[in-house]
């Protein structure tokens, strides 16, 4: 799982938001919702970032990995300065990821901020499986919106919300729920307050992706453990995706 990737693209796509494409061995990435952990020069701990998309270039596992990250601190700021050609050391294929089998025919995907990122590969996979995918993408303001068109291109039914109403529906993702039509399952990723709101508002069962500060990222240090209905779970290994029924809010 310890792999060297080469940056092929690293560009700003929205306010403080960057899309990075890397070339390397993506064979360990088996499910949407998994993440990678990036070693950055000068930073001790690896940075966990969700897989936004993978594109398999050959039969041998080598492919393009797409990440979307928000510049929120030293490490992500440093990432945003890296140029194509730079090599990065990644742990790949981390976490359980979403289970597309549970979706039913009409899955609803709800993402907020960078939490939109892992929903892209999830939507692609669900659509490939013949599901009718609706997505609600929530942002603070118009300048933060990304991937709206990309979700449309693959055939998802897209609603965008912004808190200030500068683009799409004004309000939070849950404000777009009534207009989302009926759905068979909910997949969600985003900041914890959003997850809580979705948890309350969503009509169906579903899967929710969580974040915790991590040391190892592969399940050995217990740094990321959270309580759930079914006992403790390591967010990095048994998560980041939890089923709605097992969530125990802090």
């Amino acid at each position, binding site marked *: *799982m*310890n792999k060297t990737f080469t940056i092929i693209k690293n560009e700003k796509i929205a306010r403080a938001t960057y899309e990075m494409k890397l070339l390397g061995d993506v064979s360990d990435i088996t499910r949407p919702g998994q993440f990678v952990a990036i070693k950055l020069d000068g930073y*001790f*701990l690896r940075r966990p970032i969700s897989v936004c998309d993978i594109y398999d270039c050959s039969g041998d596992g080598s492919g393009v990995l797409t990440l979307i990250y928000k510049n929120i601190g030293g490490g992500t700021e440093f990432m945003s300065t890296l140029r194509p050609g730079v090599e990065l050391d990644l742990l790949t294929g981390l976490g359980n990821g979403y289970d597309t089998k549970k979706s039913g025919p009409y899955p609803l995907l709800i993402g907020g901020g960078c939490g939109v990122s892992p929903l892209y590969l999830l939507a692609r996979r669900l659509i490939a499986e013949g599901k009718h995918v609706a997505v609600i993408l929530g942002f603070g303001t118009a300048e933060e919106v990304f991937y709206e068109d990309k979700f449309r291109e693959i055939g998802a039914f897209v609603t965008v919300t912004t808190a200030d109403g500068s683009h799409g529906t004004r309000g939070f993702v849950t404000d777009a729920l009534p207009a989302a039509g009926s759905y068979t399952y909910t997949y969600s990723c985003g900041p914890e307050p959003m997850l809580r709101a979705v948890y309350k508002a969503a009509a169906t069962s579903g899967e929710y992706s969580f974040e915790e500060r991590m*040391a*190892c990222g592969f399940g050995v*240090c217990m740094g*990321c*453990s959270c309580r759930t209905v079914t006992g*403790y779970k390591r967010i990095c290994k048994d998560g980041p995706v939890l089923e709605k029924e097992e969530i125990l809010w802090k």
Partner: protein
Amino acid sequence: MEVKRNDTAERCDTSVVLCGIMLDNPVIAASGTFGYGYEFSQIYDINVLGTFSFKGTTLYPRFGNEQPRIAECPAGMLNAVGLQNPGVDAVISRELPLMAKYFHKSAMANVCGFSIEEYVAVAEKLDLEEQVGWIELNISCPNVHGGGAAFGLDPKMAAEVTSAVRRAVKKPLIVKLSPAAADIAAVAAAVEAAGADAVSLINTLPGMRIDLRRRRPLLANEKGGLSGPAIFPIALRMVYDVYKTVSIPIIGMGGVSTAEDVIEMMLAGATAVQVGTANLVNPTACLDIINSLPSVMTKYKINKLSDIIGGAHL
């Protein structure tokens, strides 16, 4: 004699003897950073290790502290995991049988407790397990009956828990010392006198970070334990001091990340070395260290690693 030693010496002999058990090499994965070895065994064959110390075990299951438990630091990290573990009975019934499938050497059982009785109870149970080669007593835990100070801070309390466990177990007893003690060498001497077969050091150093946005301690537990390369010079100094004080073997740890660090620790007085935090940021850290030991030994003209133990002392 001299000639005979040179004749029979293999080129790059990495083996060391720890309390009567021969290790293929001095590299031991440290408790709390290696789980029960399972995740690592999917990355490399963990039988290459000297051995490993599994996660600290308490009498009852413990969830540990609330989130967040991890904070980044320059050349290191803080953890406030809070001894999360399934409790000794689940370790014995579930983890050890699983461990036996992929690790075929004796492992080290890291024992924690919040009273002398708890230490004894946990150690007694693990002492009977075949996979357990050594008992490693983590005396950095607070003594709830002794005012909440950690056993490891005070030579007297450290000696008490050591002799109680000593009486209860047959296997070699390693006492793991806390660097927060005023005089770690005095604690080492006390546990040696109380019957410890070896000491391991250092556990993490108390540290803290504050979240500038929330203006609150970053960790839910406020404070955490500092580990990683940042503490290496402190750990090395303590190993050096303890070597001058005790005659039982020392297991050195604290920031060890390279084969050079292993050699530096051994020159300071360590018979074996534990590698902790390095495993977390580089899953193959122990493997990489073991693989590079021979070439680094050659560079520094070392044939037999056990020859250099304490070599920096005059």
